[in-house]
């Protein structure tokens, strides 16, 4: 009937209090890579969940697959139709083995009492992993894998199905460059086989590399569908945010003050070794490296939640012992973790309660009870200055989109007025508009006298915010670069080889193993 594999028209979705999608359309042709793009909270994941049968759209929706009424009401319907999905927030079973995770989902299409063929499960898994060129123990429970490996398993699972349409909701958010390359290769193979792909990502470069067409959403509304060839980054950004944004290398303009923070010879077995660096007032220090190089562990050690370790931490020249996160807050250290949903926020609590949590002590009245007025004022202040949308401080944090959630976490930590702010993957899964806002904010905080440490795997980001860059590799500092000498290339060399020498490029097929995660 039509040339389209998938047609979704007049799709709306109302959540209590939010209209996540408003009359959106999405049309996908067989064998194309269709990018779905929009700011945080634009409604991408929601649209995908409707496609997957997890959410029912509001009445009036038209939904065709292969020219026929799709009739997808439950996830299993989508699976049976040949739609397989890689979820943004992963949907693995932590307690089950890698092999089973990959296989899971087919089983349920068959009878409950059917005997399980473990051999077949392993074969299927092995094949899927091979396609992605991933090496993990098939019997390892998934909870023991790194986030990056988990993401690969999630991808492998989607590949293992004989799908006609594969949806990838931010599949690369935790992957290293090498792994991303492999994924591109797989995507190309799939295309050749006529399989359509919907690809969601905030990394524009990536999107231009893989996609044939773009559908742009803005605030739950449909902006348009475009051929990739007709677009460039600037145009796309304008479509997404309705304005032009810049994202360029930091010029290193801030003059740093005294050393406010210093670590000396920090070591923890299996985590990091002999880490020494200092941080000056007003400086943004970038720490980068490959995923798995130990940056998070280092940051969490400093914050008092990854103990015990050896070495010395000095604040304003004084040696301090940080025994717990409570201690850290007292000493003026703030840490914004990489996982918003599990570590950063308490999703089922209100924005107010989240923001005030670290500073409850200061919000007490004479009786030692919380002064609700002060508390609300505090939350209002950060919701406003950080432009959290919707600006409803009483809303549950879990109802916000990713970018807005991150703003709440930042607000929470700013409320403690920290001397040292450590921020881990500050813009993971956040759209470009919000990203630049956050970068600006970090620069501003530094200029106001805070010492800021930014941990990030995204090199453009590191270059955009840092005054100085440390590169970690296998738990050690491989090198230090001032912003003036730093380029993506020399950072990569430190990260991969531990030296400034060139020689290895991002195309290196062995990149995946370089993550060095012992199994």
């Amino acid at each position, binding site marked *: 009937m039509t040339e389209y594999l998938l047609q979704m028209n007049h799709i709306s979705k109302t959540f209590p209090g939010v209209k996540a999608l408003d009359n959106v359309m999405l049309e996908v042709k067989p064998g194309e890579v269709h990018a779905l793009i929009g700011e945080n909270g634009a409604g991408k994941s929601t649209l995908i969940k409707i496609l997957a049968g997890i959410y029912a759209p509001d009445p009036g929706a038209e939904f065709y697959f292969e020219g026929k009424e799709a009739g997808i009401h439950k996830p299993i319907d989508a699976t049976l139709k040949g739609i397989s999905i890689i979820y943004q927030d992963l949907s693995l079973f932590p307690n089950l083995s890698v092999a089973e995770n990959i296989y899971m989902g087919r*089983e349920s299409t068959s009878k409950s009492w059917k005997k399980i063929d473990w051999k077949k499960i392993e074969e299927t898994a092995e094949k899927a992993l091979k396609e992605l060129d991933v090496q993990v123990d098939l019997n390892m429970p998934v909870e023991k894998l790194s986030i990056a490996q988990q993401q690969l398993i999630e991808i492998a699972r989607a590949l293992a199905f004989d799908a006609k349409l594969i949806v990838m909701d931010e599949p690369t958010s935790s992957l290293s460059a090498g792994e991303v390359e492999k994924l591109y290769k797989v995507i190309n193979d799939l295309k050749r086989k006529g399989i359509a792909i919907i690809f969601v990502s905030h990394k524009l470069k990536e999107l231009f590399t893989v996609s044939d067409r773009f559908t742009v959403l803005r605030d739950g509304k449909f902006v348009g569908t475009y051929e990739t060839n007709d677009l460039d980054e600037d145009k796309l950004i304008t479509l997404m945010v309705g304005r032009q944004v810049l994202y360029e290398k930091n010029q290193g303009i801030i003059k740093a003050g005294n050393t406010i923070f210093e670590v000396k010879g920090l070591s923890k077995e299996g*985590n990091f070794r002999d880490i020494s660096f200092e941080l000056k007032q007003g400086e943004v220090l970038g720490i980068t490296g490959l995923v798995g190089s130990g940056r998070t562990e280092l940051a969490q050690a400093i914050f008092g939640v990854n103990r015990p370790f050896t070495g010395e931490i000095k604040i304003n020249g004084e040696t301090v012992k940080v025994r717990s996160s409570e201690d850290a807050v007292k000493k003026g250290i703030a840490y914004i973790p990489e996982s918003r949903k599990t570590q950063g926020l308490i999703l089922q609590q209100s924005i107010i309660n989240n923001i005030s949590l670290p500073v409850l002590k200061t919000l007490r009245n004479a009786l030692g009870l919380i002064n609700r007025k002060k508390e609300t004022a505090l939350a209002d202040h950060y919701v406003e200055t950080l432009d959290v949308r919707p600006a409803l401080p009483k809303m549950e944090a879990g109802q916000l989109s990713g970018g807005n959630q991150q703003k709440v976490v930042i607000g929470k930590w700013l409320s403690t007025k920290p001397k040292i702010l450590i921020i881990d993957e500050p813009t993971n899964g956040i759209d470009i508009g919000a990203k630049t806002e956050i970068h600006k904010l970090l620069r501003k905080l530094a200029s106001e006298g805070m010492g800021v440490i930014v941990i990030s795997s995204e090199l453009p980001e590191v270059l955009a915010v840092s005054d100085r860059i440390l590169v970690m590799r296998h738990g050690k500092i491989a090198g230090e670069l001032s912003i003036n000498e730093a380029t993506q290339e020399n950072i990569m060399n430190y990260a991969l080889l531990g030296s400034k020498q060139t020689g290895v490029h991002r195309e290196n097929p062995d990149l995946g193993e370089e993550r060095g995660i012992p199994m």
Partner: protein
Amino acid sequence: MKSILQSKEMSIVAIVVLLSITLSFVSPAFLTFENIFDILKGNAVLGILAVGMTLVIITGGIDVSVAAVTTAVCVMAGKFLTVLPDSPISILLLFIVAPLIGVLLGALNGILVSKIQIPAIVVTLGTMSMINGIILYLTNGTYLNSTSFPKIFVDFANFQIFGVSVIVFIFAIIAVGTWYILKYTVIGREVLAVGGNKESSIRAGINFDKVQIFVYGYMGLLAGIAAIAQLSYTKAVDPNGLLGFELQVIAAVVLGGANILGGRGSIMGTFLGVLLLGIMQNGLILARIDIFWQKVVVGTIILIAVSYDQIQYKRSKDKLAKIEVEA
């Protein structure tokens, strides 16, 4: 490269072995064939229920009505037995009727938990209270004893194979059968999947409601079979005999390493948990520990066991080198 599951079981194995060695020094009667099988027989009802509870707990649920359901089946099946003729058919009928009643009661829990989405502990607290009340109202606590049962049942209850009571065999069959279901059937894997991550399981197209109704129904089924074991064991119906037993069942399962939050648990672990409780009960009398101090000893052993297990678990997690740090 042991999985957490295995290492969890290791620590309870260690405790069971340690306790057994101590006891066999203290009392020569402990490590005898007869005593070991008496322990198994004496804890078969606990074991059967704990096996069912393992599944429930793996899905992240709990069933505090098990003892009430088992008693209800005991009472009904007991009444039923009194009218049955003295023929092998009666045993067969018993094995049909008792599990059937159990399944019905269990499925009721399952439906309330899955369809109305009431937390399992509350549903089962409610049904426990209702079932207990109804049993008490109807029976008024009246006993039935072996004289009311057909002789064939008493023979069945006393039946032994190689000197091992039929009750132990029922337990063994249930344990192995359930292990098989968990490991080798689709529904078994779905039970684990649902417990591991509910959201993911829904996305993978697993019928979450069906799995829940299954586990509570299966719990009911095993309660029905446990009722037969209980009837065979006591050769009587004591409407108060299992009051408060649910806590022991849960204790056995969690001692066996099942995670009360779901996702983790094994039949082997549960078996060891049952064994640990059984050995403690038995051993304290054999070792002639002062009556008044027995509970102190049991409580202390439980606390040591769970703490040791947790410390062990934390250590193994810490040891797992996260990053290959170059020298």
